[in-house]
């Protein structure tokens, strides 16, 4: 580094990178790694980061106080993870100065989704229908799962915008999937309700979250692992309850 970067600026930079990664659903170790790597590149050799799914703490030895950032919302955004990853690599190689890196990170953090909502809904619908076949369903039910899965995903996105409670959005979306599935079976457009339901809820279920929770536990990030597991259980419960309510009341 040619110019000396102040410790304060470096800490801000580390926190910004960590925040974007955590909000995009990066693994805990990757977030900690990135922050320490940036800090080392700017000459802070001794730094500690502590990352949980809901908050991020970063401190350096010295006079600067430890800083904390609260993470309210988490999604999975692979594009942002890849961006921040490459920026942090360039920082480590000494290619970027602190102001440049900050500008790039801010740009990466503000970037919008690559795909428009209709494309996402179509993708969710296709996923649902494909999973139906993979789980041993019959091609006759393909269209039913396609429509129910797409509608369920669209409902969960829309409900999440108007109510901030995740549980409610997931529960209602699963309820809609269940009702549509029952309707299709009743109308003769589908045959096996159970398979249609499990295929159609696939875009909503927290399979990846459970796997990441166990990966965190294995890596020794106990707090992150447990809280991600709890999050996953709650989501699975919301979806299971949504489908069950549809069956109990309308079958």
């Amino acid at each position: 580094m040619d110019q000396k970067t102040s410790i304060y600026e470096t800490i801000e930079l580390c926190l910004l990178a960590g925040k974007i990664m955590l909000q995009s659903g990066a693994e805990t170790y990757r977030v900690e790694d990135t922050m320490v790597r940036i800090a080392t590149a700017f000459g802070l050799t001794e730094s500690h980061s502590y990352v949980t799914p809901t908050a991020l703490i970063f401190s350096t030895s010295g006079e600067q106080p430890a800083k904390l950032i609260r993470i309210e919302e988490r999604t999975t955004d692979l594009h942002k993870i890849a961006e921040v990853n490459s920026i942090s690599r360039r920082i480590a190689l000494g290619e970027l100065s602190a102001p440049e890196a900050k500008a790039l990170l801010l740009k990466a953090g503000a970037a919008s989704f690559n795909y428009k909502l209709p494309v996402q809904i179509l993708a969710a619908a296709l996923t649902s229908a494909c999973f139906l076949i993979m789980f041993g369903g019959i091609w006759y039910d393909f269209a039913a799962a396609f429509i129910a899965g797409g509608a369920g995903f669209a409902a969960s996105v829309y409900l999440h915008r108007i109510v901030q409670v995740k549980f409610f959005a997931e529960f209602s979306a699963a309820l809609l999937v269940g009702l549509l599935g029952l309707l299709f079976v009743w109308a003769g457009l589908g045959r096996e309700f159970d398979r249609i339901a499990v295929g159609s809820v696939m875009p909503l279920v927290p399979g990846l979250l459970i796997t990441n929770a166990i990966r965190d536990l294995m890596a020794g990030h106990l707090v992150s692992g447990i809280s991600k597991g709890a999050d996953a259980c709650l989501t699975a419960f919301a979806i299971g309850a949504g489908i069950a309510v549809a069956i109990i009341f309308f079958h």
Partner: protein
Amino acid sequence: MWAHFLTSFFAASSFVILFNAPKKSLLQCGLVGMLGWVLYVAVRGEIGEAPATLAASLLVGILCQLFAKIYRTPVIIFSVAGVIPLVPGGMAYNAMRRFVENQYDQALQIGAQTLMIAGAIAAGLVLSEVLNQMMRPKKI
């Protein structure tokens, strides 16, 4: 069998759209997902669900490391796509649904199986990372 090839390819590559994967890696994502799933389907009858998942996620992990090197993309993009067909999301949903329907014995059974499978996937991915680190030529 061809149905499995086809559907797992489209399931993996369309699922990563929901995770905002870069457009240029969608094809590779689908390919990794497909190969993992096909291996899983091929061997699960012989060795059981959890070991089959372990084998499939190990294959996915190795393919991801390879693709990450070839296409200069972070491993996570391919590994997420690769494990999507394998992750026990549907199973977790089934377990919770049994709980709500008061079938507690079945719910616990499926729940335990879910944990086993999630553990197998995590172990497979970690194992592939370890293998990758061992194969990497040491810098002197």
